[in-house]
Each structure stands twice: as structure tokens, then as C-alpha cells.
């Protein structure tokens, strides 16, 4: 039987969408306990309630500390290590969010154990499948030794669990010296009322073919019409059409919407790595030879500036 500690994420009291996905993965570990830990300053109650309601969670612990106001890997990692050791956990999991990917390796190194990145399938308590080479080679790995198993869970591989029985919530205070070498300064987030790219059931992405930030309006407008989130290729982000958080791919966000519409995107392997688990992929590209058509379920050859307004009228 395993005992799983999950590093939960919350922003301003709102539980991160990935927590339910990590719980889904943890449930496959033959777990007797699945504990979600939340780190923050002051406002953890509603996130804790949401985590406690997730099916399969047996307990929620909150670590309220002014130092956790904007959780940073270097400060959260030693707290996770303290929880893991005090609680005798067999597994420590987080999501493959930027925070999870930043924090878990630090936790693993402090514990002196290897870490499994991007768990996509659980084969056993210490055996997993994970993607390498931009998802073009899937490896089965076994975690050697008998140390704690640390891993990040590939959100796109796990639908979130629903709600179940309410688990108890416990506030803990940890006696851990936190380093002062890392200080939060600021965060820049473009406010958007659109659906969240990582969890939206529909996503429309634009690439270099869109041509400019101004032209991206055509993508936003179509996405709004069908209620989709908006993503982009690296080329579109590099060119400054849209901000970095919209990048989809091997080094951007890895998503699994039911519908993915790639507009003016050629289909480089690094981009495809981010959409392999999408339900239906639609490609709109003026080059009928573009590699995106090799993976698209439905392809439409033509000029996006003509086709998108047409589609918008038809839906």
C-alpha cells in the first residue's frame, strides 16, 4: 500500500485545476492515504474545502505562512520534505505545471532520490510510463531502490476526479528554516475572461501564419464564438503576437481538449507534442503539404483570413 502526498496549488484561495488530475493518478497507486498539502498565506480555507471534496482525498493539510504568499520552489521544497518525512509518505506528487516542475526536482534532490517527470500511466507503485523526445518515444521506468517516489503528473493524461466524501482538513505548522536567498518581486498575468487553456474542452491556436498581433483578433473572435480557449505556436509567441503563457507544445503547455483547431501552424514535432491527446484535431493551413495535416482528423486547405470569418458565420 502506498501513502501519497500531493503538492496542491492554489491562487488566491482557488484550487488549481490540476489537483484533481494528480489525485486521479494517485488513486492508481494502490494508496491507503492521499493527502493534499496546500501552501499559502492566510486565505487557504476555500481551496482546502475544494481539495477535501475531491474523490479519493483522505486528508488535506494547510501550511499557512507569510513566506508562502507567492509560493516559490526554493521555499516550498523544504516544507514538502518535512511533511514527507514526518508523515512517512511513499510518494510525493505534483502536477506538470511550471510550479510543479520547478519544485519536485528540488524535493527529490533534498530527499536524495530520482524524480519521474510527466507520469502518463501508472504500471505499479514504482513503475510508470512517461514521454521522451517530444512524446515520440514513450519509456517505461522503474524507480530503483526503496526511497520516496517523486513525480510530476502529466495533466493531459488524467481527467480530474469528481467530488466524493469530504475529507478532514488540518492546519499544520512546520518547524523548518526557510532560505532567504529567493525573493518574490512581481507577476505579470494578462487578464482574460476566456476559458483556461489547460482545462478548456475547446482550443483554437494561431501560428506564424496569422502574421501579427493585430491579426490575432481573427483567432480570438472565432474562439469566442465557439467558446474556446486560445493558444499559440512558439513562432507566434516569439514574434510577439501573443504572450508566452499561450504557447502550446513540448516546452509550452501540454493539453488535451476535445477539439483543437490549429490555424496557420505548420505542425512541427515540438508543437505536436503539446496536442497528442486532443480528441479531434482540425487544421487550417494554406499549404496542403504542411505536416499538421498528417495528424489532423479534419483538414481544411486555404487562406485563414478567408476561412475563419466564413467559419465564424456558419457556426
Amino acid at each position, binding site marked *: 500500500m502506498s501513502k501519497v502526498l500531493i503538492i496542491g496549488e492554489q491562487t488566491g484561495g482557488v484550487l488549481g485545476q490540476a489537483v484533481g488530475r494528480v489525485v486521479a493518478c494517485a488513486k492508481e497507486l494502490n494508496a491507503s492515504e492521499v493527502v493534499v498539502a496546500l501552501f499559502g498565506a492566510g486565505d487557504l480555507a476555500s481551496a482546502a474545502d475544494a481539495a477535501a471534496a475531491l474523490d479519493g482525498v483522505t486528508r488535506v493539510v494547510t501550511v499557512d505562512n507569510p513566506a508562502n504568499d507567492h509560493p516559490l520552489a526554493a521555499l516550498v521544497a523544504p516544507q514538502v520534505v518535512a511533511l514527507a518525512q514526518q508523515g512517512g509518505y511513499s510518494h510525493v506528487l505534483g502536477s506538470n505545471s511550471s510550479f510543479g516542475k520547478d519544485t519536485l526536482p528540488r524535493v527529490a*534532490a*533534498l530527499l536524495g532520490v*530520482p*524524480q519521474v517527470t510527466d507520469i502518463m500511466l501508472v504500471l505499479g507503485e514504482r513503475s510508470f510510463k512517461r514521454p*521522451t523526445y517530444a512524446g515520440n518515444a*514513450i519509456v517505461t521506468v522503474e524507480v530503483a531502490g526503496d526511497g520516496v517516489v517523486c513525480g510530476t503528473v502529466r495533466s493531459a493524461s488524467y481527467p480530474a476526479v469528481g467530488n466524493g466524501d469530504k475529507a478532514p482538513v488540518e492546519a499544520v505548522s512546520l518547524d523548518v528554516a526557510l532560505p532567504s536567498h*529567493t525573493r518574490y518581486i512581481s507577476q505579470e498575468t494578462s487578464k482574460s475572461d476566456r476559458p483556461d487553456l489547460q482545462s478548456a474542452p475547446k482550443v483554437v491556436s494561431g501560428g506564424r501564419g496569422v502574421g501579427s498581433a493585430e491579426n490575432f483578433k481573427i483567432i480570438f473572435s472565432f474562439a469566442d464564438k465557439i467558446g474556446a480557449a486560445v493558444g499559440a505556436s512558439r513562432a507566434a509567441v516569439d514574434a510577439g503576437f501573443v504572450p508566452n503563457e499561450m504557447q502550446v507544445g513540448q516546452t509550452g503547455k501540454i493539453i488535451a481538449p476535445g*477539439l483543437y483547431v490549429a490555424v496557420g501552424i505548420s505542425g512541427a514535432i515540438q508543437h505536436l507534442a503539446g496536442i497528442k491527446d486532443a480528441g479531434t484535431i482540425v487544421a487550417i493551413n494554406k499549404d496542403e503539404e504542411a505536416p499538421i495535416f498528417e495528424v489532423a482528423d479534419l483538414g481544411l486547405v486555404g487562406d485563414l483570413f478567408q476561412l475563419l470569418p466564413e467559419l465564424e458565420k456558419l457556426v
Partner: protein
Amino acid sequence: MKILVGVKRVVDYNVRVQVKPDGSGVALDGVKMSVNPFDEIAVEEALRLREAGKATEVVVVSIGPVAAQEQLRTALAMGADRAILVESAEACQSLTVARVFAKLVEKEQAGLVILGKQAIDDDAGQTPQMLAALLGCAQASYASKVEVNDNSMRVTQEVDAGLQTIDVDLPAVISADLRLNEPRYVKLPDIMKAKKKPMDTLSLADLGVEPAAALKVVKTEAPAARGGGRKVASAEELVKELKNKGLL
């Protein structure tokens, strides 16, 4: 200040890798190998810091087979001062690599380490954070902008929500993201000059590094193939298809 930069030899990013039929790994024979693209960005950033007078020496390090000398030469041709190859015929995983870097930081008295945020072969994305943990120092991952002040750095990081700015005290480990800079092109005379630059070869044992507990790779397989799709003739047909599937 001395900067250590990691340079990993990986399959070139343009190569579509093939999984070997026996499941023992990916086919590497005759495949083009290059510097991991994120490491190239890391080298570039170190050079810019040196050129701006913020650093005195850029030392590039690769942990891998003898053939990784080729990638180290590329980094020297870009402008690095010196190279260290920590030779290991067996591929080393993140925690072992982090241990090697920790030893080298101590040996070289480096004030800053810049590594790529991930290697595009194993896509693990762990070494910088593990190294920072072992050194007990700050980590600034996914950097898209860095600014060195006296004893600290201000780093803008690419995070899921957008951009986050943090201050870290030196020594620190920075991991380079795609938009940190655009690496320079290497010119022929630089390649000639690079041949004369010093390159040391060490072993794990020379550094007193024990390989860490690792992940045992049991099997490698190709991903599930997506069912082939088809082209539609018009916007009308596309909308009709999507409505039939209940997607619109």
C-alpha cells in the same frame, strides 16, 4: 565571477526519432547530434554577461561520451573560454549530473551556473533544480530575462500564468528558457580558434561522484498512432462534420 554552463549532446531537434523495434531505445546510428537548444541559449547568456563585464570566465561542461567533445567545441567556438568533459560512457541521469555540477562549482569556485531548462532527449527538466538543492542555493528556472546586480540577480521567469520576477542571491542556478536570447552564429575563424582552447577530461571518480539512484528504463515504445484523418473541401463541410461529432 566565473560562470559554469552545461552543454548536453542530444539528437538534433529537427530529427524525428525512431523507436527501435526491440524496444531497447531509440535509433541513434547516423543520426545528427547537436548541442541541446536550451544549452545553446545558456551559453549565449553566459557570454553576454561576460561581454557586459559581469563575469570573467565562461566554463562549459558536458557529462557524457567522448563524442560530446564536438558539442563542447561548438560552445568554445561561440566564445566560451574553457571546456570540461566529464566522461561517462553510460548516460547519467539528472541527480548524478547535478552531483557532478555541485562538485565542479566547488572546485571552480563558480558564482553562477546556467543550464538549459530541459534536454530535448529525455525531457526531464530536473538538473538545474536538483543542483540548486544540492548547493543549498537559489534557483531561477525558465528564465526569459536576467539582470546581474552586485550579489544578486533579478530574473524574469516564464510561468504558466505569464511572467514572474524574482530576486535571487548569488551563487545561484539559472535555467534558460526559449526567449532568453537568440544564440549567435558561429563563424569559421571561431571554429579554428576553438580548437586551441583548453579542454580537460575528468571521470566521475576523479570528482568523487557516486552515481545516484536512478530510474531504470525498462522499455521504449512508439506513442499510440493517431487514426488517419482526411481533408474536407469547404468551411461548410467542416462545420457540418464538427456538428455531427457534437463538437460545435
